[in-house]
């Protein structure tokens, strides 16, 4: 009994190892390498300010698969007051796997009244898309969504 169990574990370990190796081969074969998250984290901090990001208040309602990488719809809503002393000051859009991940940044005054945007962007390949907001008091909010691309765009 004990021996059988040991064998099963070993075999499972072998398959797991093979699966990982397969994934590595796939990753190596897709041209543009997947950018390390830490690199984009640093870019976000550079544009939006450093600090912890609360994953709330921001909705990115883009479809999970973009038909055309040259034209990816990015509809964004932010559920946050826009009052004189309490408002969203800026919003940045980042695509981790684009040759240049920083896409756009918006600055707002409270007069906008509500943050709802739609922009169309280029995506070179499947990627995390990050939308990060900063309040006037320096608090960071955001969302991250994985979007796949049926047909790649020549992204900037």
């Amino acid at each position: 009994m004990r021996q059988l169990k040991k064998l099963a574990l070993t075999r499972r370990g072998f398959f797991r190892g093979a699966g990982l190796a397969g994934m590595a081969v796939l990753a190596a074969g897709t041209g543009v390498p997947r950018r390390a998250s830490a690199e984009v984290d640093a870019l976000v901090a550079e544009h939006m300010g450093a600090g912890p990001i609360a994953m709330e208040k921001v909705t990115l309602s883009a479809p999970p698969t973009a038909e055309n990488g040259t034209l990816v719809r990015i509809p964004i809503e932010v559920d946050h007051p826009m009052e004189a002393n309490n408002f969203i000051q800026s919003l940045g859009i980042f695509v981790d796997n684009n040759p240049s991940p920083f896409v756009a940044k918006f600055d707002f005054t409270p007069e906008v009244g509500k943050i709802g945007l739609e922009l169309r962007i280029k995506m070179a390949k499947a990627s995390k898309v990050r939308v990060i907001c900063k309040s006037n008091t320096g608090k960071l909010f955001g969302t991250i969504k994985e979007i796949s691309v049926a047909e790649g765009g020549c992204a900037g």
Partner: protein
Amino acid sequence: MGEQVGNARVRGPQEAVAKGSVVLIKTLIDHPMESGLRKDKESGETIPAHHVTDVVVNYAGKEVMKAVWTGAVSKNPFFAFSLKATTSGPVKVTWKDNKGVEFSGTAEVKVS
């Protein structure tokens, strides 16, 4: 040949809206939005960057929003945004590209 550039369009609600309501402003401009990272397929040479870098939204004479765009924004960029209609007045959107050329379009918001 030359890409078409300009033809800025800004559209808001056609009719008067209640004061304080949130309206949607839709904008479109013809622009190649070349990132500067693409290569010409035939010559192999890099296609120079030519894209919008700055966008400013003015509402009733006051700047309410501005943006920095890179070449990762799509060609002929569509951009829509919400705006609280607090007063009747023009919503003027101005785009500037990396060659320093400016384009603008206006929509009138009317509150009742």
